[in-house]
């Protein structure tokens, strides 16, 4: 092992294994996770060449091969329990995108959520065993997050009891669904339902797209791959165009809404239930943000302990770059963020399961807040993580730009999270809508509960920016609880400002919607402040549950760093709201620097605790053993450009050029 990393690990103040247990939820979870990881990583069928040296088509092929193997293995091992499948796939998917993934993550769940018992009986078995490879086709070329704008139509024909599917315009072509381009033979298509001459809005239909046996597109279907992207080389994101394509009536998913054989439309009871899947996916994405950022931090911090550069004092040996204050200032707040998001992710998962049980008992009361919160948190965590991964990459200097660092891949795989499953700005505005509704409710004398309950205090503790003497002495910058209060005040203030600006615009403009648009920058700011408060709150509450003293100390420092760094970045909000004074902000900045020094000895152990295997990180710079330079050189030699000593373009172009001139 590299000497620097060895010293770092020896000097840590806590045992990273215990922290890993905290992150996994329990020692038992850690054990089980590792067991399955080893099962997969030691399996020769899952071995392949370094993907960085393969073409897109080769990468797709490797991905399909692995998917196929995985299905066979699950069959062989008799893994059928959904929980077990999740375990198995989670490991397998750690740094890997799979073309048949949508079959499990979207096709089957949608079938379960929206299909009748008869429909489930008919389709479920064959899709679970991949006789049917399904995908989920919602987004169109011209329409994304705004669902009502989708143009694909499904017109009911009572004569034949069929639906006729059409893509009437170029913009209505289904675009982006994963696995659609080359892999799938069925798709759940979202289309505007038209029956008896009337449009009833979006509904889901099971549409066969490729012939079983030959895999050729069926007549009336145009389907293909949408071409190269920033990342997701393995994934055949596809397009789908349908021309008077007929499917039987039974292919409409009819658990809620129905079309009778004569064409009569029967309305669903409640539409809130469809929130369920969205909430699940978004809370999963929060966890994804935590994992991606944790990986990036692991790589950047280990490399910064191995890399030596410049000098702090003339004549002394070059120090580890992790000893530079600026490097610590770049990385440690991100490390703190990674931990914060880990805990937020875990909280979201628990809450989802808890609320799901309530829904099972018919209690939908908490769903609107959860829906609003997941939207905002998905946006907040993915925006932050997106910038943070890039910051980690750049903190590795030039080598971060090489694929050997693994960071470009982590980035391009993560960044679509900002736009898929709801574009982030739109998500923030959804949260804002809920905040405004809650604000109005409080204003009309009703109490609100949950994370927004701070709004209840507003009318009594009205915030007046000019009165400097309201809270300044209250904030204790060494107490996570007190800092949580400060974030709460900031959120309350920005929610109130947005609400008032909105009211003013409503009075001045002809319509509510125009007013909403002209306030939307304020509204997004309010949502961000709300989400920031939630993250800070969850992090400080987590501290209470930590038993081990050494772990508690180090996590408390990270929590403080996360809170104070945020204040320093948004100092304007805290000053303007008179939540903190100028001299407190100066103290905050001073305290941040002390915390950097406090975290420094534990930095490597803190990333070790994330417990990523080298294969999972896919990074030469982030290797556990720190032998970076030797492996960098070995890796480069494998580059396709190095296959021949003299490249063929020398004979084709260079030599003639030299003789011509």
């Amino acid at each position, binding site marked *: 092992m590299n000497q620097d990393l060895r010293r770092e690990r020896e000097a840590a103040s806590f045992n990273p294994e215990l922290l890993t247990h905290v992150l996994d939820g329990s020692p038992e979870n850690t054990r089980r996770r590792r067991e399955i990881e080893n099962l997969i990583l030691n399996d020769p069928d899952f071995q392949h060449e370094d993907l960085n040296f393969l073409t*897109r088509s080769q990468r797709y*092929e490797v991905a399909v091969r692995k998917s196929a193997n995985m299905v066979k293995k699950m069959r062989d091992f008799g893994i059928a329990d959904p929980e077990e499948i999740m375990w198995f796939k989670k490991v397998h998917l750690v740094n890997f995108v799979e073309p048949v993934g949508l079959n499990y993550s979207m096709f089957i769940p949608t079938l379960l959520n929206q299909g009748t018992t008869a429909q489930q009986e008919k389709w479920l078995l064959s899709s679970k065993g991949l006789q049917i490879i399904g995908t989920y086709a919602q987004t169109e070329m011209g329409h994304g997050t705004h669902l009502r704008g989708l143009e694909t139509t499904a017109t009911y024909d009572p004569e034949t009891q069929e639906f006729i599917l059409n893509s009437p315009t170029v913009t209505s072509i289904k675009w982006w669904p994963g696995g659609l381009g080359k892999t799938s033979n069925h798709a759940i298509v979202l289309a505007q339902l038209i029956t008896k001459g009337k449009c009833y809005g979006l509904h889901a239909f099971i549409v066969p797209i490729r012939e079983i046996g030959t895999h050729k597109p069926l007549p009336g279907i145009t389907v293909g791959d949408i071409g190269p992207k*920033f990342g997701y080389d393995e994934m055949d994101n596809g397009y789908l165009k349908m021309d008077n394509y007929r499917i039987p009536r039974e292919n409409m998913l009819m658990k809620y809404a129905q079309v009778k054989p004569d064409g009569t439309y029967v309305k669903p009871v409640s539409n809130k239930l469809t929130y369920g899947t969205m909430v699940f996916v978004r809370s999963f994405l929060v966890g994804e943000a935590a994992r991606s950022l944790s990986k990036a931090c692991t790589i950047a911090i280990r490399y910064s302990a191995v890399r030596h550069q410049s000098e*702090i004092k003339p004549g002394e040996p070059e120090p580890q770059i992790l000893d530079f204050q*600026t490097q610590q200032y770049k990385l440690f707040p991100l490390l703190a963020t990674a931990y914060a998001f880990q805990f937020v992710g875990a909280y979201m998962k628990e809450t989802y399961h808890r609320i799901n049980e309530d829904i099972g008992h018919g209690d939908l009361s908490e769903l609107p807040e959860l829906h609003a919160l997941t939207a905002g948190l998905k946006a907040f965590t993915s925006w932050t993580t997106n910038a943070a991964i890039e910051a980690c990459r750049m903190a590795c200097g030039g080598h971060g730009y090489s694929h050997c660092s693994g960071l*470009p891949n982590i980035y391009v795989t993560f960044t679509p999270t900002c736009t898929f499953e709801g574009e982030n700005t739109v998500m923030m505005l959804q949260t804002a809508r809920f905040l405004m509704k809650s604000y109005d409710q409080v204003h009309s004398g009703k109490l609100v509960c949950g994370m927004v309950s701070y709004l209840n205090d507003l009318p009594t503790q009205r915030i007046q920016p000019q009165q400097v003497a309201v809270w300044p002495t209250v904030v204790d910058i060494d107490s996570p609880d007190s800092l949580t209060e400060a974030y709460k005040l900031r959120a309350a203030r920005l929610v109130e400002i947005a609400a008032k600006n909105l009211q003013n615009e409503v009075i001045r403009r002809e319509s509510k919607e125009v007013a909403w648009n002209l306030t939307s920058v304020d509204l997004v700011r309010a949502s961000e402040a709300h989400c920031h408060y939630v993250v800070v709150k969850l992090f400080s509450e987590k501290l209470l549950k930590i038993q081990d003293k050494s772990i508690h100390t180090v996590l408390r420092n990270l929590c403080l760093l996360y809170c104070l760094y945020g204040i320093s970045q948004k100092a304007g909000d805290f000053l303007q709201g008179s939540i903190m004074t100028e001299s407190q902000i100066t103290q905050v*900045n001073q305290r941040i620097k002390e915390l950097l020094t406090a975290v420094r000895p534990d930095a490597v152990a803190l990333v070790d605790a994330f417990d990523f295997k080298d294969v999972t990180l896919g990074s030469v710079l982030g290797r556990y053993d720190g032998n970076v330079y030797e492996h960098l*050189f070995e890796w480069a030699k494998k*580059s396709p450009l*190095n296959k021949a000593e003299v490249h063929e373009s020398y004979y084709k172009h260079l030599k003639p050029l030299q003789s011509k001139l």
Partner: protein
Amino acid sequence: MTQNERYEAAVKRKCHLQTIAKRQGWSEGSPELYYSYRTLSGDLAFSIHTVFLKSLKSLGSEEQIAKWAPLCNDFQIIATYAQTELGHGTYLQGLETEATYDAATQEFVVHSPTMTATKWWPGDLGRSATHALVQAQLICSGARQGMHAFIVPIRSLQDHTPLPGVTVGDIGPKMGFHHIDHGFLRLDHVRIPRENMLSRFAQVLPDGTYLKVGSLQINYLSMVVMRVDLLLGEIIPMLQKACVIAIRYSVIRHQSSLRPSGPEVKILDYQTQQHKLLPQLATVYAFHFLASNLLKFFHSSYSAILNRDFSHLPELHALSAGIKAMVSDLCLQGTELCRRACGGHGYSKLSGLPSLVSRVTASCTYEGENTVLYLQTARFLVKNYLQAHGSLGSTSQIFLPKSIAYLTTPYQARCPAQKAADFLHAKLYTAAWAHVAARLIKDSAHHLQTLMQSGADWDEAWNQSTVLHLQAAKAHCYYISVKNFTETLDKLENEPAIQQVLKRLCDLYALHSILTNSGDFLHDGFLSGTQVDAVRTAYLNLLLLIRKDAILLTDAFDFTDHCLNSALGCYDGNVYERLFHWAQRSPTNTQGNPAYEKYIKPLLQSWRSKL
């Protein structure tokens, strides 16, 4: 295309262009060649060849230039510039490659003593270059004399194979620049003649005597040259293109509606979309003028430096370092923001945006990592501040370079603005930035002094206060860019219409920068909370005004569709047709699907056999 194919295509294009240039008589560095690069979006091989030529001209003696420049211009040799090593980057003194003078044969022995000394990253080195300008520690008569540049032949001019003692190859795939063969180079006691050391500012006489002319910083000269060139040639056009694509697409894309039953609205009519894109547009205009003026300053100082007048070098170095850091940082952020502002389609390579992002992002670390560069600027600021204010606190009448003259002007303690409209005065917001920059520089200098008074030595104290220095340098760069934009406007008085529209962009740039750093302005009460609210009001009003001219402001960059290479950003706006058409041409659609035959089919059939 694969990495191999892209490399080959880039070589082919460059060779073809070279033949044309030769026929037309365009020389290296001429506007004609610059325009050709712009047309071809720089997707060409041998870009470092030019860097070699420039370094040669700034560091080489007249005889050396006479000997090597024609060979270079005619492509008799293909040259690269090899500075960065596997284990060492921005910090030049840390480089390990050695050039030891052997007086007996009048040769230098160039050698890579360790694994980390391997040259790593130079463009064109992997497969193409025949010669490299190698930065190495000069050792003569037993003494180490620091970094110097040496011309080292690395590949045979007959058959292109590596010369004896040379190990050279490609460093493997990267995030972008797939067409460039960035390379590694190991030298095992390679001998080159004494004349191959570039000797305008330092020479080794035949007997091994070392002679030096000029300042220590002179080694940075070729880096300064490159930084200044990159701004307009490589970095700023990326954000310009991203703005063109994102803004054009935002008037084609309709999404949701503003009124319950109204039609879907152009997404550029959403305030949040304007708030994302229009500040980027303002920024890229600000940077264009900033870089143009830096270039002018550079040319005037450069000729002085070549005549060994080094008085402008520190200011030039500090300015170019800070501006390069600021421009590349914000161009990256802006380009990425434009990409995400295009929603899902921004993720498709057909939008042209991913390749802009992965290319501009490299500029944050090459030619000096940005944090290191900001700190170089900060060193210059702190040094001058301390000199100007003396240790006694009296402002002595010392002459400060022009760009930091504001450090000695007394500044207002409070901003005089009363209402939102007051913030549309160039003098007012320039003064606001001057105030904040001066305060942050003062604070960082005082913090440094305090640490030293409490016993830390300069170097320790410097490291303990770098976060403050970083903030001070950034504020300084903001001030410079705002001031420069307003001065540019003053020169446009003969073009009132243009002046008016650019004035709005200038206002937007300045106000946006104040809002994103509002804490710094509120901190000492320079702005009150009410004033910050007024800034926000003025800012939001500007968005609506600029919205009207947004398309024309991007058309003015005058990029051809070919050069943008984007299905979303084409001039005619036929976004969706083009997207569909381009996707169908993708190799995944035109070639068969071997994965089906090999894996999908057997998978389906294995299931059936079990049924």
